């Protein structure tokens, strides 16, 4: 403890985050908690990476250090890419995720704008109902949806997923964008209206450019959800060449009760790479969109 009275006075006057100034304190209050979080969050990735480069005999040998690899190999990756349909699954997942995301965002932008900005009876009510739709769990919704998918003859095709994913994505994206559009001042649109813009021009030339961060975060959300989605992909797709990564890795790399741990982990790790790339590009927008649209 510092007993110098002058220093005490100075500390009393200080405010905010100044208590973090000295290094030992910063260690305890900042770095240590961050380290704990990092370990908890990153350990699964470490384990995936480790397992995916361990040769099979090392994987089952219990006398070796399980936290390390002695003789790393890329055999599992080779097996995954050459001997399985992994590249096809990857392409399927990408196709489904990108298309469903684009569809959902386009629909959500228009829905959110109409609900927030166009005055008509029941607009608020519609907003509430849309959110209600989001609360229905997919694990219940997949049964009626399966019937619809069958009726339209979409079963076992990418379209089955492209058209059903928006049922989860649109409600949430619409809600996220509604909040975003609300933070754009009315006067901007009124001014544009007087300046001679039509509703469509207001949307495309004023509202959308100002909502880019919001749209990006809705897009990231939708893309991630599509990429990781499991239950619809499991139910609506049956043939191996149409499967998406999360389902295929599990159904094609597990034979009965034999788990091919090496390729399984390699597949899971490769499968999370695209999402990581998307996040790393847009993380700033993602964060800034949480704090409102127009800052003057």
């Amino acid at each position, binding site marked *: 403890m510092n007993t110098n009275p002058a220093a005490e006075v100075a500390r009393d006057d200080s405010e905010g985050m100044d208590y973090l100034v000295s290094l030992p304190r910063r260690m305890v209050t900042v770095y240590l908690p961050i380290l704990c979080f990092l370990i908890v969050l990153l350990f699964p990735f470490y384990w995936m990476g480790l397992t995916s480069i361990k040769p099979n005999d090392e994987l089952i040998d219990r006398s070796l250090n399980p936290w390390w690899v002695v003789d790393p190999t890329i055999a599992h990756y080779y097996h995954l890419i050459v001997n399985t349909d992994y590249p096809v699954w990857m392409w399927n997942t990408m196709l489904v995720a990108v298309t469903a995301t684009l569809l959902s965002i386009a629909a959500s932008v228009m829905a959110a704008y109409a609900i927030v900005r166009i005055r008509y009876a029941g607009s608020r009510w519609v907003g509430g109902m849309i959110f209600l739709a989001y609360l229905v769990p997919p694990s219940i919704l997949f049964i009626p949806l399966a019937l619809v998918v069958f009726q339209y003859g979409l079963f076992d095709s990418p379209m089955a997923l492209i058209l059903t994913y928006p049922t989860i994505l649109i409600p949430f994206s619409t809600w996220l964008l509604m909040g975003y559009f609300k933070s754009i001042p009315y*006067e901007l649109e009124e*001014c544009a209206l*007087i*300046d001679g813009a039509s509703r469509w021009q207001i949307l495309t030339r004023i509202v959308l450019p100002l909502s880019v961060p919001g749209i990006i975060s809705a897009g990231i959300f939708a893309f991630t959800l599509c990429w990781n989605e499991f239950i619809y992909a499991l139910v609506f797709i049956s043939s191996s060449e149409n499967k998406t990564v999360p389902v295929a890795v599990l159904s094609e790399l597990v034979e009965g009760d034999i788990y091919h741990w090496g390729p399984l982990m390699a597949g899971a790790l490769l499968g999370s790479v695209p999402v990581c790339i998307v996040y790393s590009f847009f993380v700033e927008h993602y964060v800034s969109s949480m704090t409102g649209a127009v800052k*003057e």
Partner: protein
Amino acid sequence: MAEVRIRDVRKSFGHVEVIHGVSVDIADGEFVVLVGPSGCGKSTLLRMIAGLERISDGQILIGDRVVNQVPPKERDVAMVFQNYALYPHMKVYDNMAFSLKLRGADVGDLDARVRRAADILGLTALLDRFPRQLSGGQRQRVAMGRAIVRDPQVFLFDEPLSNLDAKLRVQMRTEIKELHQRLTTTSVYVTHDQIEAMTMADRIVVMHDGIVEQIGEPLELYDNPRNTFVAGFIGSPAMNFVRGTVRANGGPGRLEAGEGVSFPLGDGWSAHDGRPVVYGIRPEHLVMAEPGQPAVDGEIAVVEPTGAETLLVSRIAGAEFQAVFRERHAFRPGERVALAPLLDKVHLFDAETGQHL
């Protein structure tokens, strides 16, 4: 340029009528200020002229055209908003060019018009900046530039100076007035600040609770307010009011205000003998009483010197009275002072209706 005629316009939100039949004729090239306390309907009226609010009843004409059903973009009006409403993602140049681009204006013409407007407002050096890089006054100027570029028939201003600090407000007030003298475009200007109204307007429309209380030139409203609302709203510091009864007794009359206090009246009030009235006198029309002059006695409560003039608050008959002196007196709180109203400047209003007598 065009005249604007507002004929018995009403506006209801649901079942609540907020504007109860307003009629104003605005001449071509005139600068009219709508003024009133907040909630009086002045902004709603302006928004109806712009086409941002539907007109519930009555008519608005711009030029010779009834515009009730005309969408905003076809009314050929330009509006300056209180928070400027600059498009944050566009540079100053694009903000000013936006409406012309939407109209598909020829690129050379567009550029010439933007540069001319920028030149008028001293914005030429700022054309490449974004709104967030500008100060409040500069943003205000860009908002006006955006209006000027279009060369509209009518300018509409919705409290454009409210977000500026006091000094800048005075400066921009002058700029807007100069601009109007130069462009002579019909302008409708909404404000709650009566000083802004007085200094800028060709004519003022005083609104209160959804009706027009009085329309007139600034000094006409100041000298001849039609009722107590206008009398109290126009002028700063505000007019002093006291309730009482007229006693004419033949010659110069007086007003009995109760508690044994009476205020002197001039000649010509004998017809109102015994009538309960509101007596109004402006602070600058109270002077130090000469010996023998009819006056009223008060106790000094507060002295506020501003340099150019001194504001004296004194208590008379339980009410506070303000008086303004340009000459300097040695006032002290607690002392007594004899104030003489200038008799030809006294206003009497009916105690019931508030109408000027």
